[in-house]
């Protein structure tokens, strides 16, 4: 049936509903990745957001067991141009439409997504709602709605849990962890303990980690309690540390850098990222609304390791004193180019080095 997408600036788009017949509110952003829709909609970093896909046909690869980035998707809506009906599930005829229904997430298709993206490119992300009727009431409701800034609290684990392996012991601080990171750690046969971000220094150090990972997560890192930064300041001195996405932003904040919103949010895998030391260019999945302010970096503490060659944004930092570093992009390649996974190889080299010198 006909449904509508209303943006906070009053723009209305018409489309046909799919997924759940629900009314939702969220922040709307656009994504240019051509593959990996299932990973994207299940990635906790998109908690509370509605995603517009530039790729015009979505759903033709089905819903796969291997493509979950969290068991329960946290997005608030999905806007596409054409919806394909395909199932590859052996147990259930599960396709994208049914998947969204099951998780009570509305979708809208047959939308002029190119027009919508060109619009969002100018306005930046804004509040949006998917409703049946685009009347004044709906607009008023949208304007009155205050979106949560508790996304990390929504998605991160409340209790510690283990993902055992026989290799190095890695502690993951969870800000909204995606499966890709665990999968990568699994490739190294790491013995993983996942801890809530409210964990204490003591709890971490008691586990005697060989390495620590600050996970990806949704939202604005500045809305997290200061205790998180204190935790990072201590942990980075104790064991090799890798921050990813939100974890990278927190690592920067903990070392006195500041964040600035990007002139336009970037969600996709088409930007060249350069490793500054080698001048090598590679590509990775990126999803960011904020970037570390280049001018705010205390060069005595940190240096820039990677940069986005399109918008110049800082994509990686390394601590001058400690074996601690971070990347803004997603090196778990779920979805995304595999060349980015070299970051994990780096991390485990650092871990081996640390273990060798501290045993």
């Amino acid at each position, binding site marked *: 049936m006909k449904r509508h997408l209303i943006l906070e600036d009053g723009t209305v*788009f018409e489309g046909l509903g799919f997924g759940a017949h629900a009314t939702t509110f969220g922040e709307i952003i*656009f994504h*240019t*990745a*051509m*593959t*990996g829709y299932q*990973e994207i909609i299940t990635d906790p970093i998109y908690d509370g957001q509605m995603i517009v896909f*530039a*790729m*015009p*046909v979505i759903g*033709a*690869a089905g819903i*796969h067991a*291997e*493509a979950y980035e969290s068991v329960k998707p946290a997005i608030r809506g999905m806007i596409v*141009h*054409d919806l*394909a*009906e*395909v199932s590859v599930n052996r147990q259930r005829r599960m396709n994208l439409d049914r998947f969204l229904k099951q998780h009570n997430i509305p979708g809208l298709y*047959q939308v*002029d*997504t*190119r*027009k919508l*993206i*060109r619009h969002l*490119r100018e306005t930046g992300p804004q509040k949006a709602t998917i409703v049946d009727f685009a009347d004044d009431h709906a607009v008023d409701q949208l304007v009155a709605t205050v979106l949560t800034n508790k996304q990390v609290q929504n998605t991160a684990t409340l209790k510690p849990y283990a993902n055992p392996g026989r290799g190095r012991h890695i502690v993951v601080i969870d800000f909204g962890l995606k499966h890709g990171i665990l999968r990568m750690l699994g490739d190294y046969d790491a013995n993983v303990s996942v801890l809530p971000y409210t964990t204490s220094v003591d709890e971490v150090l008691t586990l005697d980690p060989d390495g620590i990972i600050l996970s990806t997560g949704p939202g604005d890192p500045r809305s997290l309690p200061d205790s998180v930064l204190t935790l990072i300041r201590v942990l980075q001195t104790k064991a090799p540390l890798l921050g990813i996405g939100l974890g990278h932003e927190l690592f920067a904040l903990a070392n006195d850098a500041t964040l600035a919103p990007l002139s*336009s949010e*970037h969600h*996709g*895998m*088409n*930007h*060249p990222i*350069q490793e500054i030391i080698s*001048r*090598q*260019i*590679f*590509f990775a999945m990126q999803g960011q609304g904020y970037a570390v302010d280049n001018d705010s970096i205390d060069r005595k503490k940190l240096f820039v390791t990677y940069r986005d*060659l*399109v918008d110049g944004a800082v994509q990686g930092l390394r601590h001058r004193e400690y074996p601690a570093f971070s990347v803004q992009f997603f090196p778990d*390649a*779920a*979805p*995304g*180019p*595999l*060349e980015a996974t070299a970051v994990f190889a780096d991390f485990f080299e650092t871990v081996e080095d640390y273990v060798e010198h501290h045993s």
Partner: protein
Amino acid sequence: MSNITANNVLFIGAGANDFGREAEYDAAIYQVMPELRGHGVNVYLIDENPYSLSLESLAATAIWKPLTVENIKAVIKQYQIDTVLPLFGGERALRLWSQTVQAWSHGDGPVPQTLGLTIDMLLRVNNVAVLTSMMADAGLPVITNHVAKAQEDANELLREIKLPLMVRALHPNQANTRQIVERLDEFETAVKSAKSQSMTQEIVISRAINGMKEISLEVLRDFRGNKMQIGASEDMDPIGIHTADSLSVSPTLTLSDQILEKMRFYAFQVADLLELRGVLHVQFAVDDLTNAIYIIKISPYIDQMASRMALVTGYPVMLVAINLAMGVALEEIVLSHDFGKKMAMMEPMMDHVTVKLPIFPFGELEQAGVSVNRQLNSIQKSVGSTIGFGRTFIEALEKAIRSAHFNNASFSPTNMSHSSDDALIQQLIHPEDNRVLLLVEAIKRGYEIDELAELTNIDEFFFYQLRHLLKLELEVEQQVESVEALRRAKKYGLSDGLLARFWRTNFKNIATLAHENHIEPTFKALEPSAGEFPENARQYYSTYEEENESLPVSEDTVLVIGSGAFRMGDAAAGGYATTIVLSELRRLQYHTVIMNNNASDATLLQNLADKQYLEPLEISDVMKVVALEKPIAIIVPGNRRKLIDALADLKQNVLILPKEKHVPNGPDDTETEFALNVFSDGHNIYPINITQHMTGELRIVPEIAQLPIQLAQTHLENPGVYQVIWYQDTSEWVKHVDVPDISHDTWLRPMPFGQMAFMSKVMQVQWLRMTVRALLARMTSQDSELLTNVNKLTLQADVAMIASDINYALHLQPTQMIDGTRFEIGVGIKYDEQIKI
């Protein structure tokens, strides 16, 4: 900054057109040669193809000679060539340059440097067995190759490898063909055939992987080892049907990110292994059940995939490729202002769907009484392709079908009910060129989608899509003149013409109904950022949505209707003709807009026209562009009679580029065809020369042609080059011929584009440009002067146009000989002392 030192650079052209070798190489060379001037080098080009555009480019010194090792060596010596660029001439140029290097002797001086690939790699790339084992050693997933020479060795291998097998030639003397052997009794024939195609009489046998999905990736690599993916496509048809004969979709739709990323990683590894500085096409087979991936072919040079990806993504593949070859790092490539500033190093993203549809020569041959084997298999049968652009698979498919100029009615579901169920199943398993139609028919008869998917090895997605199309068409057909039905039909790309047929009316009524209800096409820009950045887009395609992005170019726009796909017959030179027309219009300072749908020629190069519409070329499509651009004139090839009449009917200013509707007749073995060639400027007729055409060869008769009195009095209103044709029962080349009584022993026709291209090169007179000037009343006094003496110009001609060595028997298995100068897939040239007086 380039890190290469070069003074005199030689491009090796691709030679005559052939199966799998259309005008993409010529278009690539044509596009990149001017780019090299920025590097301060002298550019040379050797090619033999009479249809070549590049040979007429002012950006290079062109050498129009047959492509042989001797000629290449002679050119290198004469022009002190220090650098050779073989990668833009495709597989054939690569092979030729390898042979030249291998034939290099001590006295020849230093071997010129090769750009893009080292000589060592070049030699490996040309040896499929060596290449495969190199990849296997690097841990890449390849299928083991076994080389055999004698039939007994081949038979021995049968014990090791299970059927089905793939058999092909080692060191092939032509484009490599793969034959699939499914039954033992086919084995010996396949081995024989492959041996005959090998320069060393050796064959390569490997396990066939029929039924898997075929995926292509195009990637690039710079000298620093930076790599990037340009694009990917998936074939609807499984492995077992040649990729050129497959319906192919880009971007890939049915593959998961994980599979694609693995392929990308392998493609990057191959590029590193080859130490490539350029673009690479890697073909993969994917087993959908096990997710196993195999590399089945690598092409580290410009090919059809490269030019297709350039068109469908908007990424300037060729311009980037030449920079890579010249040793410019990816991040330092500077593109002209026609392109986004950072476009070269951003991976292209697509927010549209494209469908490539192969064009088969069966119709043209059937008309001429030649019947061929139509069954699709691992040997290419198609000669060209069209591309449909849309926002859904169905829309892109509908537009590709329309671009192919099939009768659209024959693709409607109401039309295919005659064959029995058994025949249908048989054809589903052994598909022919009407495959899509059969799939629709099978769905219509109620076969389950999973059954069909299993039977055909086609992904279920495509059946769901076709079922959707079928449902849509049936609904629309019943809801005569319903505005809602019209709106829905338009969204999925159904044309006014097709709807008119459904509703038993004409397209104008459909157009009016749409217009009255504000159902208007919206033109979307085709640019590689998928809307992320404002780019200087010049390429547009139509769809039916909310926002239109295309604004009129100017008030003095000339719209040029392209000639669509490469086809057998005179259309083979259609891309040449269209490109020359665009170039001349620009020289005359008109604003230009082109409509076309062929990725394999130069007509859609971004910088050749002010705007490109990637569209089908039917009247309703053309009128939608006309309504927006309001051109002062529309140039249409003369074979499009219906389109010309319809445009004239709608009061458009149509300028006709003379061209015959059907494949021109040609002489058989016992006769000769003479042509008195003349030019009409619309007022007067000027004699050019007389040509003699016997099977396989066309020569210029070495005498000054005069205009018969009856012809001098004739008025040929439409400017262009024409031929007065007559036949004689002779099989000797002549030095003189009398023109017969033209009132009844002859007939008049436009000179085929192919001959025009040949004649322009022989005479150094640009006949197509002259035609354009005449059409627009822009002839100069120099033109008039030239025309009064032009019949004295060809006496020096020592070059003949000859049929090139196209293996019709292999590709088409025709019932009788196919004369290459008549069907003109491709032609070559021959220099002959005998021809010269």
